[in-house]
């Protein structure tokens, strides 16, 4: 069973709620994915249109947990204020902490991330930091009080999968007990399966589902991939080798030359 802070979850697929063709397709995609956690954000609300109220009603009807993010925040101050606002609106102390350092790659500002994580953990937040695969940053985040890590696979929305396998494997091996969610960059179900096969506890997907030609079908495909990847991890994958090893026994082979 997957555990984030004190919550146990069956599904190892977390789903983002952005960029779906329609609210109805979002609803069906969440159901097809089996996700028990969806990410949400806060944006300016117009007193006339009140668009956020309708969205929030859809999410509440889904009966899933929400993980509010601090997407788009470039400073510690912005991230802290957004986290406070999210805690009040969504009624959860969970926060997916993003402090973006650079716009082209949306790479986390890991220095600001650690600083913000330290403050939020002290204020009682349960922080899910969006980070890189850097081991020392991970160590600092854990020291700050984070009990979940969310390393990127590759830059947000790029769909390139696990960009630094060596680094991700090293991170997994260095902190075997820490729940880790590969967040960002996953493009197709095989990427998600790979993350789970490596021993990552879960994946967070958004664009790969919402921008698929058929988001609902793709959500289902990801659910299967995540289940297969986890089952493979638990089954203990074989070690890769550089040279061929015959699978058919050599002993007893006829001499026919």
């Amino acid at each position: 069973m997957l555990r984030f802070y004190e919550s146990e979850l069956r599904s190892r697929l977390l789903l983002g709620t952005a960029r779906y063709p329609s609210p109805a397709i979002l609803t069906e995609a969440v159901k097809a994915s089996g996700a028990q956690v969806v990410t949400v954000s806060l944006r300016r609300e117009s007193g006339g249109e009140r668009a956020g109220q309708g969205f929030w009603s859809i999410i509440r009807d889904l009966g899933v947990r929400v993980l509010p993010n601090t997407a788009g925040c470039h400073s510690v101050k912005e991230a802290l204020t957004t986290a406070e606002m999210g805690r009040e609106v969504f009624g959860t102390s969970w926060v997916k902490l993003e402090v973006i350092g650079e716009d082209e790659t949306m790479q986390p500002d890991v220095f600001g991330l650690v600083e913000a994580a330290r403050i939020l953990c002290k204020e009682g937040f349960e922080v899910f930091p969006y980070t890189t695969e850097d081991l020392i940053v991970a160590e600092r985040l854990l020291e700050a009080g984070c009990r979940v890590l969310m390393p990127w696979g590759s830059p947000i929305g790029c769909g390139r999968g696990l960009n630094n396998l060596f680094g991700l494997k090293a991170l997994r091996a260095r902190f075997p007990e820490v729940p880790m969610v590969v967040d960002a960059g996953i493009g197709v179900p095989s990427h998600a399966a790979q993350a789970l096969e490596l021993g990552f506890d879960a994946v967070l997907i958004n664009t790969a589902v919402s921008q698929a030609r058929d988001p609902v079908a793709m959500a289902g495909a990801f659910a299967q991939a995540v289940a297969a990847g986890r089952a493979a991890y638990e089954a203990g994958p074989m070690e890769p080798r550089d040279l061929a090893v015959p699978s058919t026994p050599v002993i007893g082979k006829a001499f026919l030359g």
Partner: protein
Amino acid sequence: MRILVNGASREIRAADLTGALEELGYAGAVVATALNGEFVAAAQRQAARLADGDRIEVLAPMQGG
């Protein structure tokens, strides 16, 4: 007085944040507020006095990744 609401200039009569939200059409809405960049919890809105030139942010749940 004239204040900035989500970046747009608005003329309001209310003197506190609770009154401003009602006047601006947010009554009953699930929103979070900030005044001049500082979070103001729902319970503190009544006590948050507004002055000419103040900036308020009114945020609501939205799609996110």
